């Protein structure tokens, strides 16, 4: 039993975000075997960092949560400033300032870590998400007891000055996927820091009624599902182009592409592309179960949770080969196919729609790799790598 402190930019049941959800799951699981506290901010929204949660100490199950105030909301001109730092001519000073302007600027949390370093109150301090200020400036205060769970993606920020030393400092690093590990090693050359791949754990999906879902939406014939934000950033324009190519082929007249998620782009009105908008959790599972194939065209998808959920519903996945994370997941699980061009998309989609064992293989893999006991074991392995006896 160790005394652990987990640092994350936002924490709570109502917080939306992949990294934050992972952090909370890890805190709760660790609390079954260790004494766990969380140090975080009072923000709920990752963009404004506006105060939301009461300051001070609160309880989340077995986890004690300490919330510190964000000093100032995010700078309204942050976007323009960031564009220059990420894409234009800029100085070292700009890169350092970018970190502060991104926030959340929470000096009391940093001073708390400074006190922690002196008192030795926690055996290990686990930092979630490399990119935000509490980790970028907090981890260097306690490197001798730090564990980093970076949740890094292929993004320009990873190359900025505030992070050059960060990935060299912790006792151990927990990556979410092997692709994330390879990326960080490639950019930052920190192979000497011990690391493990934590992956994810998933609850069993709730029961769902695929037949009712199809009836409600009048979906007959093959159903290809996209789940997530519907925007160009997520590659939906490319998906529509691929879909055109597929429809131009033979024998697929009654197939429908279903887009489920918040719409942030112009979409063509056509009978073979069904736009559902945001869906409830219940509908999400019904859609995943009803679908014949889940397609995830994003270039930047870094966690690939929707793939894992599709496999829980025994639905195969189709992803572009240029997204290392999702392509790696498909390769490891055998739960789908990757495509390298519009023409290849057509071939691979047609293959998956013929009915294959990809969905079943995905399901077996996800049940083995994403179980809570497997996740617990990997968390313990991470602590061991960090020198926890």
């Amino acid at each position, binding site marked *: 039993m160790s005394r652990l402190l987990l640092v994350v930019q936002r924490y709570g049941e109502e917080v939306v975000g992949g990294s934050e959800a992972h952090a909370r799951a890890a805190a709760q699981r660790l609390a079954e075997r260790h004494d766990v506290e969380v140090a975080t901010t009072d923000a709920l929204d990752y963009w404004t960092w506006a105060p939301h949660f009461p300051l001070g100490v609160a309880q989340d199950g077995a986890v004690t949560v300490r919330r510190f105030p964000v000093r100032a909301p995010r700078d309204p001109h942050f976007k323009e400033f960031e564009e220059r730092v990420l894409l234009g001519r800029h100085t070292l000073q700009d890169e350092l300032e970018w970190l502060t302007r991104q926030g959340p600027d929470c000096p009391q949390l940093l001073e708390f870590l*400074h006190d922690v370093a002196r008192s030795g109150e926690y055996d290990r301090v686990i930092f979630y998400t490399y990119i935000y200020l509490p980790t970028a400036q907090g981890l260097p205060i306690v*490197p001798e007891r730090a564990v980093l769970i970076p949740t890094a993606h292929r993004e320009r920020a990873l190359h900025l000055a505030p992070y050059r030393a960060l990935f060299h400092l912790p006792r151990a690093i927990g990556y979410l996927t092997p692709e994330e590990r390879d990326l960080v090693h490639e950019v930052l050359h920190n192979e000497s820091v011990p690391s493990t791949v934590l992956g994810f754990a998933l609850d069993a999906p709730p029961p769902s009624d695929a037949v009712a879902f199809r009836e409600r939406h009048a979906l007959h014939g093959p159903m290809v599902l996209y789940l997530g934000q519907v925007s160009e950033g997520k590659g939906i324009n490319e998906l529509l182009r691929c879909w055109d190519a597929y429809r131009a082929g033979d024998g697929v007249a009654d197939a429908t592409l279903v887009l489920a998620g918040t719409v942030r782009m112009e979409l063509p009105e056509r009978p073979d592309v069904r736009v559902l908008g945001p869906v409830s959790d219940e509908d999400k599972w019904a859609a995943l179960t009803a679908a014949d194939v889940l397609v995830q065209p994003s270039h930047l998808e870094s966690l690939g949770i929707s793939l894992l959920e599709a496999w829980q519903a025994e639905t195969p996945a189709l992803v572009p080969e240029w997204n290392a994370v999702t392509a790696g997941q498909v390769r490891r699980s055998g739960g789908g196919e990757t495509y390298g061009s519009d023409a290849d998309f057509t071939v691979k989609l047609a293959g998956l729609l013929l009915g294959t064992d990809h969905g079943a293989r995905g399901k077996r893999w996800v049940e083995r790799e994403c179980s809570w006991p497997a996740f617990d074991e990997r968390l313990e392995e991470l602590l061991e790598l960090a020198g926890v006896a």
Partner: protein
Amino acid sequence: MVQRYGDVAGGAEQHARELVRRLVPHFDVTVATTAARDYWTWENEFVPGETRVDGVPVMRFAVARPRGRDFKDRERRAFDETASLVDERAFIDSQGPVTPELLEYLSDSAATYAQILFFTYIYYPTVYGLPLAPERAVLVPTAHDEPALRLASYKPIFHAARAIAFNTEEERRLVHGRFGNARVPNDIVGVGVDVPADRSGPRFRAQHGITGPLFLYVGRVVESKGTDQLFSHWGGWVETRRALGAKLVVIGKAEMPIPQRDDVVHLGFVSEQEKYDALDAADAVIVPERYSSLSMVTLEAWACGKPVVCSAYCNVLRGMSRRSGGGLYYADHGEFSELLDLLVADPSLGKRLGAAGAAFVARTYTWPIVVEKYLDLFAEVRRRLH
């Protein structure tokens, strides 16, 4: 990367320059430094820009502002055990030398160098510069047991450096104890000591008319080096041993009053030749300082086959004396007197100690060995880079 470079006073800075001269045959070396000559004011006395020192390209960056006027106050606050992170930062910035352009250069150009040596842990350029290129950084901390070493702000450089070159076993133990960073590849490297073969004690004695026992102090004459205590111990001892005609020879700049007495001979600055003649003439070299990362004069005394009498309160010198068998240490006036009595009574003791010291220096602190160790640390950096 070093805070000052060229014709400047300072142990670490001399160390850097000597090392650069020895690395030049193996590497294409560039020195990045400031335009400051004085470590207190950081005034830009050199011309900023590119120049050469000993034939090596040197890039001098202007210091943006002098040491803070509030420095002493900042230091006091940062060293208090309730100090905040903000207090620590204020101390480091006030201490300086504040060199934003040097940092911009490091940030832009780090990748064009195979490895970057950062000299001394304590100053701004290393604190903010090393984290910009940790994957190719070799830190030469020159740390000793001082309050600054307790600040959290120094942790990143000791944990992020790819390798650390310590001066002594004691420095390594101190740093590992303080930072828990034993995982960072490291070695005891230090510096090489070259002493000329031509050194003549009789020449020195004849020149200064000294015939009796001769004890030598070399270094700045200043309280922080322990010379005030040296003078009081010396006075106490020599008063009761008048018949010996013993002399304390003091070489170095006086920054405090030196007792005016015929058994203390202050020579101020002397030539290198005269210094080595004095070392050859000495029965022992006295090193009273309590804080030291590496004492050059101790290594030089040993290289000349002379015993060292040092303060037992200096971990580094006490440890090195014990390991080498080349020195004796005193904790108080009584022990100081006893050691001097022993050395005067038995000249063969001094010879045995000196020979042991010479063997220790030959084992560790010679340039071929030092350069070889740096080559090994650099190989470690390159191995990890690709």
